[in-house]
């Protein structure tokens, strides 16, 4: 009973904090009062509370039930008080575009299948066990870090020092430790349920965000494809942070793309929270987050001229990692990965002798990325497409971006550029990495490629709607006036 109550209390905190933040941004009323608002609130609250607790731990905050509740209360009260002193424009009501009878049936069947799939996934997660054999790194260092935070009631540099990959930031272990604290013990078997809940919240949140711009006959089937994709489902319960990172980056990209469609600065505030959490969860989050902030800033300047400079605030997200490096440095701990040294990117001699690693990793990443996307899409049923697979997928993606770009060039450019930068930054890490390339790629490629695949699948309905000119106009969304950020 203690475990169930603790888990419930833990899981109630996230939507409460998230709702307060959406209220602060003036977005809470944009998503109705039902499941859509709950999903987005949960994901937002998880990211915000996780970031706040991680920073608090670095500053010496103890991790106990009391301190977690206190931080959540401070966030909620702060959001409410700040909101009362702000006069933001009233939120526009969602206005889904009506479709034909066929479209409505596609929507209904897609929603039913997605709902059944999410329910089945939650049952499996609630009644199953964690699997250290498939998530070896969880056994090796992710769960030990969480247990260390739980038992030491905070970040203890002496205990942290003896665990592998101490350079990884603490958000994921901190959130796992929060679950241990609320349930009164070291219970790794509860983490799959927590992770599955976060995955379900992500799918619902993506639907909520898309719903004002994309007709449901496009968004629901597309999200159902993502939610039942074999790789999404396989990692849904994983205590590893890779899929969580993918949720956060995809949510940040989606909210940034929405800002490029709709001039409300609040979307940038939401993207900032997702980016900060992504950067405090894993080093790849800093790479992906920095690339995202840079491309959205560029696209924002092109779209809104000087007013687009507001997107510069997104750089604060990946900047959160500096606090973690300061904490590591303060305690004399290594801040860089033992697997690579970023300074080597500026060493032409070093790079020149390792071009075979670059070629190998690019080929392996193309193969892995193709499989992830094709496994999620109806084309996956056709089986391996051989040599045409990569060119066909690239041509298809470029065509989608081209047609979407005719309606919203800033969105298409931002998504396309981010994908290129994300893949290039991963290839660069493989290029300068020290581990033997074959095993390095073999162990990591499916994990790291999941983020670009998740971003593509999450943005797919928006890009399709733009390409098919199926997005509602500003007037249909209840907007008026010039397209400049508020």
């Amino acid at each position, binding site marked *: 009973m203690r*475990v169930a109550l603790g888990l419930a209390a833990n899981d109630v905190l996230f939507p409460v904090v998230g709702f307060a933040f959406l209220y602060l941004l003036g977005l809470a009323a944009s998503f109705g009062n039902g499941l859509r608002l709950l999903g987005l609130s949960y994901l937002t609250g998880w990211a915000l509370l996780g970031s706040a607790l991680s920073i608090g731990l670095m500053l010496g905050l103890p991790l106990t039930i009391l301190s977690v509740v206190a931080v959540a209360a401070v966030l909620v009260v702060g959001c409410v008080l700040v909101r009362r002193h702000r006069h933001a424009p009233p939120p526009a009501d969602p206005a889904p575009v009506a479709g*034909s009878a*066929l*479209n409505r049936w*596609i929507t209904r*069947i*897609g929603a039913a*299948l*997605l709902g*059944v*799939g999410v*329910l*089945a*996934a*939650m*049952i*499996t997660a*609630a*009644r*199953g*066990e*964690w*699997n*250290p*054999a498939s998530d*070896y790194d969880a*056994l*090796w260092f992710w*769960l*030990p870090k969480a*247990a*260390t935070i739980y*038992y*030491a009631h905070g970040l203890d540099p002496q*205990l942290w020092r*003896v665990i592998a990959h101490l350079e990884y930031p603490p958000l994921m272990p901190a959130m796992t430790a929060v679950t241990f604290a609320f*349930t009164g*013990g*070291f*219970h*790794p*078997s*509860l983490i799959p349920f927590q992770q599955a809940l976060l995955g379900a919240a992500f799918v619902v949140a993506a639907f909520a965000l898309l719903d004002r711009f994309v007709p449901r*006959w496009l968004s629901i*089937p*597309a999200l*159902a*494809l993502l939610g*039942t*994709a*074999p790789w999404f*489902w396989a990692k849904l319960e994983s205590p590893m942070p890779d899929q969580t990172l993918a949720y956060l980056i995809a949510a940040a990209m989606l909210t940034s793309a929405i800002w490029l469609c709709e001039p409300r600065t609040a979307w940038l505030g939401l993207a900032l929270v997702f980016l900060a959490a992504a950067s405090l969860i894993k080093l790849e989050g800093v790479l992906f987050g920095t690339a995202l902030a840079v491309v959205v800033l560029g696209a924002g300047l092109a779209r809104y001229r000087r007013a687009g400079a507001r997107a510069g605030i997104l750089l604060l997200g990946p900047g959160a990692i500096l606090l973690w490096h300061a904490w590591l440095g303060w305690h004399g701990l290594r801040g860089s990965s033992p697997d690579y040294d970023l300074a080597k990117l500026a060493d032409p001699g070093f790079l020149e002798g390792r071009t075979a690693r670059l070629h190998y990793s690019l080929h392996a990443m193309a193969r892995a990325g193709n499989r992830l996307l094709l496994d999620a*899409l*109806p084309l*996956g*049923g056709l089986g391996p497409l051989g040599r045409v697979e990569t060119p066909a997928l690239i041509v298809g993606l470029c065509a989608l971006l081209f047609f979407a770009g005719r309606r919203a060039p800033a969105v298409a450019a931002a998504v396309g550029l981010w994908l290129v930068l994300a893949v290039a930054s991963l290839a660069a890490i493989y290029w300068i990495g020290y581990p033997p390339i074959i095993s390095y790629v073999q162990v990591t490629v499916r994990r790291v490629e999941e983020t670009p695949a998740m971003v593509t699948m999450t943005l797919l309905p928006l890009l399709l709607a733009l390409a098919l000119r199926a997005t509602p106009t500003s007037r249909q969304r209840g907007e008026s006036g010039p397209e400049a950020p508020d």
Partner: protein
Amino acid sequence: MVAIVGGLTIWTVARHGATVVQAGYRSLVGPGHEVTNSDLDPLTYFASTVALSGARDVIPRDASYSVVAGTIKPPFSALPGPSLTVNPTSLEYAFRLWLLPRTYVPLRQAQWVIAYDISPDSLGVKYTDMVVLGPDAFAVKVVRR
């Protein structure tokens, strides 16, 4: 066109979703798990859960310990269950996770030593207490001068 793409999409979701629903149904009608058992059981992949829980009972929370593994062919590997990934590294990680907040240290600094599939007498340390944790697994309290 919409009908073809929509049909293909629904077919794909249904095909993928069937696996998810089957797993959910199997979980629903299958036996439930106690949380404490579910925490420990998956470590069967790497080590004897009897030895793991025994070591947790025996070694004080503030003590340091080390793990020394022998040939890693324990008798329990013949039992039915998941295929074992038994090697000294994964065995050590399983103990290190399960025994937190006890501190893992090198053998020469340890207050307690878990001798796994190896005789405690061949550890090269003097010990006072010896507790049998399970088949071929022992915990010994080391004498430090």
